[in-house]
């Protein structure tokens, strides 16, 4: 019983602590700042460097497959 109570107490404090930390992140817009200054530039660099297929190398064929519905 005592062990259970102790666990509940620890859980309660952990949850309260987490809730307060999240509130601080929310209130000071720390999520926005981390995304703006950290995550977005990192991802953007990654996308800029990605190898991409050259679309102009594709041949533009209009004859296959045949799908006419004008009857």
């Amino acid at each position, binding site marked *: 019983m005592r062990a259970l109570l102790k666990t509940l107490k620890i859980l309660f404090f952990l949850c309260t602590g987490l809730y307060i930390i*999240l*509130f601080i992140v*929310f*209130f*000071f*817009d720390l*999520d*926005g*700042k981390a*995304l*703006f200054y950290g*995550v*977005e530039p990192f*991802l*953007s660099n*990654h*996308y800029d460097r990605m190898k*991409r*297929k050259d*679309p*102009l190398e*594709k041949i*533009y*064929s*209009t004859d296959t*497959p045949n*799908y006419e*519905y*004008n009857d």
Partner: protein
Amino acid sequence: MSEKKSYTRQDVMNKVKSLASDFWNGKPHEERRLGDLYVDKTGLYKHREWRGFKDTMYYFNMIWLYNYGHMISDIMKYGGGLKGPILFARGVWRYRWLGQSYLPVMHWFDRGLEGMRGEGLKASAWHYRAMVSETIRQFMRMLQADQNLGGDPEIWKKTLAHDETVWGGIFYPWRDRMDDVPLQMIPYFVTCHVNNHVVLNYIDAAQSIGLPGDPCPMCQAEAGIFILDDVPDYFPAVVTSNEACDGSVGTSVLQDWMMNKPLFAMPQPMQFDDPLVQEHCAREIEECWKFIEEQTGEKFNCEELVKHLERQNELQRFEWEKWEVAANTDYYPINGVSQALYRIYQSQDGDRDIWHETDARVKKILEKCVENKINSYPLTRHRVIAWSCAPLYYSHWCTWAYNCWGLNCIINMDSLMFDMTIRTDSYENMLQDMALYHEWAPMRRMAVGGMHHIFELWEYMERFHCDMVMMYDQLQCKGMQGVHGLFEDEFRARNIHAIWMPHALPDKRTVSRSEIRSIVNDYMTTIMHEEPLDPTLLEFDDSEGW
């Protein structure tokens, strides 16, 4: 000496009282100084707004935490459980539009809901939540089927693609076995609102292969996504349209080239009032159904079609209820940007569970506001109707305009285009109504659908009791530029206050948000001779913001 002491005590008491009131209720509108909260250039907040205890806690628990939580749980729900987050991470790594726009979603909420309180805050936030959920559903379906990421070929076979301007209702007959996901709704349309940096890459890509820079940037961007090879391969066949205008035809040609898949072109006619055109359009829908049957081997199911049309009619009936309250009372709780985005998304997407769930929640709030006479916008000075094609990178201008000037955007053109239910009493009636709905597509019915329709503005202005027009002026929209002078004449003749808002749809580089604000500011001071409600919002630099 003692007199001074008692005065100071009183002063302290007053200060404490006012701080306590600010803590509990939030500051009164005119004392909020929302502009002071911004970090220069970025649009970030030094700290998020304190809206009073109840509303801040609502925002923190029911908007910020709730939506971050659901952004994870929806990925699992629509991505096949625990596999979902892994698939999502791979998608983020592969596609710019996904990674760069998914993460700042909560800032999109912040911008649209700035300064809001009480029932208005709640109702508007539920609209945002629905759009996020539907967005996740769509891109998780894309990723599950995506052959670029080694997706499931069975899901690929059962997923059809279509232009975002082809109404999802066309695919209702197969919703029991298959799914349909628009090509550009998320990679283009949603990203422009959430993070306006993303689309610039696609516009530049279109111009980098030698295409001219003067067509509508929407059409350029939609082609650019393909040019940058940033489209998941999630579908065996595609239905395209010429919507909204000729630029889109050009986009479809490029898409056809780069997709190299069976494609059915289903253009919406410009002059759709002609009964012969109507007949042609109805037959074209049937041809499209035949195309889908042949490409997928799945038979047309009329019962499924009727079921979804009737459910869609339910959504439309509630939308009419909302319009009724917005038009005739001061108790409409939904703000301008939530109204506009939710409605265009939902009416174009068609019947999905999330719209019904959201409408049920919003209905309760709406009824509460009407019964208890709750005015969510008490400092409204002008009831505004927004007309023509809107700036996607500044769809939240309405939130700013209310906070700064008391301009309350009651309704907008995009909300009003699908002003109809669809008859299901006979096959022929149903098809005729479906054809009309298909023709009344975004920007077609009122923007490039002919004089009679573009001038429906006057009727809607009266119906919604608006005294001012926010007239969008898309600088690269040839159709709307062509009628600029006619509108000027009409505004003058009818003695209507109209503010022309120049913009370039998704491209903030042509006209910035701050230029837009300064045009509104100039009109409000020089023509209307009004004072701002919150002067800190007159000028600020958010040029690098999402």
